[in-house]
């Protein structure tokens, strides 16, 4: 029987970010009242001779608190009861699987400069309060958020996190011992995010309707 014995290293990063502005695909700049973002990253590193990661991937998905807001054709507006409070949103679990493609080439290239001794598979969830439907009821591509441009500061923060960890003393391949996590840092509390002041529940609806008739 032939045996090949190797390893794979799995890093999970998570952190918070406050965005101050967003950009639509129509190149419109939108200042944000509530730009809370949490990122959850799965980064797998494998030796260059491994059989499973044969190329580098940089992939991300954006999930917003508006993900389950349906359009109500009766009232011709969005049903805002579907908004999930950011605190209850998926803030815990990073992706559990590898990315199977790349949708952020620049990020992939930046990581490739940092990680040269192994292949990597980067898969990230961006959990966000920002959704294009907040700002316009016109359901067209122009009003959609340009994710790559809007979340660029978040990607920069993620790359910085990874850079600082990879250059730290904790990250040493010779310390690898099966069965013992190399490092576990306690979660950062959500309170570090700037939460906008509480407003009446129907305020978003009013704001939305105002935009609708403008």
């Amino acid at each position, binding site marked *: *029987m*032939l*045996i*090949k*014995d*190797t*390893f*794979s*290293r*799995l*890093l*999970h*990063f*998570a*952190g918070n970010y406050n965005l101050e502005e967003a950009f639509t695909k129509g190149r419109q700049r939108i200042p944000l009242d509530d730009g809370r973002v949490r990122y959850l990253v799965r980064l797998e590193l494998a030796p260059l001779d*491994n*059989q*499973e990661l044969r190329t580098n991937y940089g992939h991300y998905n954006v999930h917003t608190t508006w993900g389950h807001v349906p359009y109500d054709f009766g009232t011709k507006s969005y049903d805002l009861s579907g908004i999930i409070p950011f605190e209850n949103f998926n803030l815990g679990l*990073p992706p*559990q699987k590898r990315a199977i493609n790349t949708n952020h080439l620049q990020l992939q290239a930046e990581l490739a400069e940092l990680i040269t001794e192994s292949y990597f598979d980067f898969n990230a969830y961006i959990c966000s309060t920002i959704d294009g439907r907040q700002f316009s009821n016109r359901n067209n591509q122009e009003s959609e958020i340009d994710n790559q441009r809007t979340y660029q500061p978040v990607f920069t923060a993620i790359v910085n*996190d990874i850079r600082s*960890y990879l250059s730290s003393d*904790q*990250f040493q391949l010779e310390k*690898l*011992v*099966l*069965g*013992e*996590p*190399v*490092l*576990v*840092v*306690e*979660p*950062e509390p959500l309170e570090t995010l700037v939460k906008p002041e509480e407003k009446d529940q129907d305020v978003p609806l009013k704001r939305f309707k105002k935009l609708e008739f403008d």
Partner: protein
Amino acid sequence: MIIKDNISRLIYFDGNYSLNRAIDSNGGEIFLEKGQTRYLARLELAAPDYPEISENQVLFDVFTTWNDVYWQKGNHGAIRGFSSGLITFEELVREKRPPQKRADRTNHSELRDELADLFAGNHFNLNLRIYSEVDGKEFHRNLNNLKTYQSVFTDILGQLNNYWS
């Protein structure tokens, strides 16, 4: 910022085995003249708190030289009998590599329990592919894969036992 840094161990193995009998779904024995088998496996071992392997899994799949052969009923002037599509064992195993992904379920709980004893203190995920020239179609019977390939599983378990100790 939160960081979690974990290692999993990946072991790939492959080997050959020659079967001399198969067991059908009714428990009947079939003696084999051609029983070449090759197995390719991906075994991942991790600590119990590894975030992506929360339980032990053992999955095996069987691929045979008869996979593309089907029974044609002879309608519309076709010949009644097996279709073409039979390949040789060498063609079946040519350039085959171990599975590249984790098993997502278990279809051999007995082997899983035996491996759990062997790798006590770790979680594991075994994804196994068996390439074989044994197929029930040849004998017009359905094979019981668990019983037919039991000696292959025993061989794998023995080899892993040697390797792990």
